[in-house]
């Protein structure tokens, strides 16, 4: 794996590279280089399996982090490629030509994080949120409490009663003159 990383470092500039476990590595690249590096990893270095693609919202830094998790069936190593993109201009290249099934991750991220993927198939179709009009809900600035207060009404709630009085009224009314009840009076 070290050799692969060295070969990649010869080609592009890697910002951060971490070894998490023997079978898990992460590195961060620039947005412009992502298309090149992913196709290089897939075609030349046998990272043919895309396990997933996901986004993380760093609201305080004004960035989204996109992660492409690749897997190599020959050396059995997972490699996570991270890209930081600007939160205000949330847009990323579509990778559906490399892995046809990535369109569904891109559709999900488009819906839940509001990151656009121009050219991705069916990216504007709704995934789990049909008819959603608020800001994308997986963003950190989406206020769940405010949304639920605005959308759903409060149930009136149960009225509370003093159990002793209530039971006397409901169940023992006919037996009001029994000794126990009389004693309580």
């Amino acid at each position, binding site marked *: 794996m070290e050799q692969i990383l060295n070969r990649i470092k010869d080609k592009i500039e890697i910002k951060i590279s971490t070894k998490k*476990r023997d079978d898990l590595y992460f590195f961060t690249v620039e947005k412009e280089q992502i298309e090149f590096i992913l196709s290089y990893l897939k075609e030349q270095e046998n990272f043919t*399996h895309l*396990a997933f693609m996901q986004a993380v919202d760093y609201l305080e830094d004004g960035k989204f982090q996109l992660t492409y998790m690749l897997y190599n069936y020959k050396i059995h190593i997972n490699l996570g490629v991270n890209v930081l993109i600007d939160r205000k201009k949330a847009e990323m290249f579509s990778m559906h030509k490399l892995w046809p099934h990535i369109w569904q991750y891109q559709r999900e991220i488009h819906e839940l994080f509001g990151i656009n993927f121009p050219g991705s198939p069916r990216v504007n179709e709704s995934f789990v949120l*049909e008819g959603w009009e608020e800001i994308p809900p997986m963003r950190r600035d989406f206020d769940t409490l405010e949304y639920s207060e605005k959308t759903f009404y409060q149930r009136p709630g149960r009225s509370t009663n003093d159990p002793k009085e209530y039971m006397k009224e409901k169940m023992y009314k006919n037996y009001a003159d029994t000794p126990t009840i009389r004693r309580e009076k």
Partner: protein
Amino acid sequence: MNRMSENKYKGFEADRSKYPEMKDGKPVIDLESHKYTKIWQGPQHPGVTGNMALELIIDGDEVVDTKTRVGYLHRAFEKLMERRRYIQCFPIVCRICVPEPDTNEYCVSAAMEDLSGIVVPEKAQWLRTLNLEMSRVGSFLMWLGGQAGSIGMGAIGQWTVGMRDFWLDLFEEMTGGRVYHMYMIPGGVRKDLPDGFKDRARDLIIRTRKLLVNIENTFFNNIIVKSRLKGLGIITPEMVDEYGIVGPNARASGRECDIRINNPYVKYGELDIKMITSNGCDAYARAELRYQELLQSLDLVSQILDKIPEKGEIQAKLPNVLHWKIPAGQTYVKAESTRGEHGFYMVSDGSEFPRRVFARGASYTHAISLLEKLAVNISISDTAALMVSLHTCPPEIER
């Protein structure tokens, strides 16, 4: 693996001569021409594997276009976890998969341990392996009944689900819960095995094997099953990478991918376990492969029962979990569920709450991209069998 089908479907191309005209990669379907009918299979339908729906466009009884529709089950687990402390995530994650909740529990605990550098004691690792393998047995039994039921053999479903209930009894003894166990927590497991558990488990393995002999005779040697499943839903080896196919679906197309063998976790590295693959590529090959894996899982459970140490710690020392801050970082932990690669990607920012937790389920690609492709040009009566043969589980799609 002598019964595995021959590699006669390699390079199979679907017959698209009857397919509607394609324009910009999409079929042009004029519903007003009265040639095509749009029907929904699901979300409440005995032939779908949970709360999801297939929007089928049919021409006669032949499917010409399919769309998978989800959203009936969305409980926003990932968003909920961002607002909860690490230890509070546990009652949530097991709900991601009903037949096999333990893989979720393992992945989340292992991700937290990985980020915070906790080492799990030896015995706890063995107990985790036992729990994971038992859940695979339970899930396979449920699947076997579902596959038989999808082509009209309801009796096998009753046998296997009945047998699964005895496995749930074992889970109840071991963990206190039947369906959701919440057994694995960061640092180890909650309980040790009760007295006499190993004998009862060995007894149940023998009873399950006896049942499986009957199932092999009635299901796998049945001409109707063969005629329904052979040639259905062919996954060519080239499609495995294109569609991100994992688990038994990929192994039935000849790909050697089993996380228990390739990237051994917990104690799988110390067990005698062989990769089972097939070149059949179709639904029957997948059914046979899962049947072989079920037998293998029973073998593994008895191996684990023999190797589990009698004494030892079952829980590493944890900090106060109510104020537990995990160092900043990101990790990805995966395990082999019955459907394939099941993983959790966890990002921590150093606070008491996870920044992002993402559950990667195998059904995400199997039930959307792959199913939409495979369901074209098959008979509408085969859609249920195809869906079950991919072993899809909707809660993994909309976490």
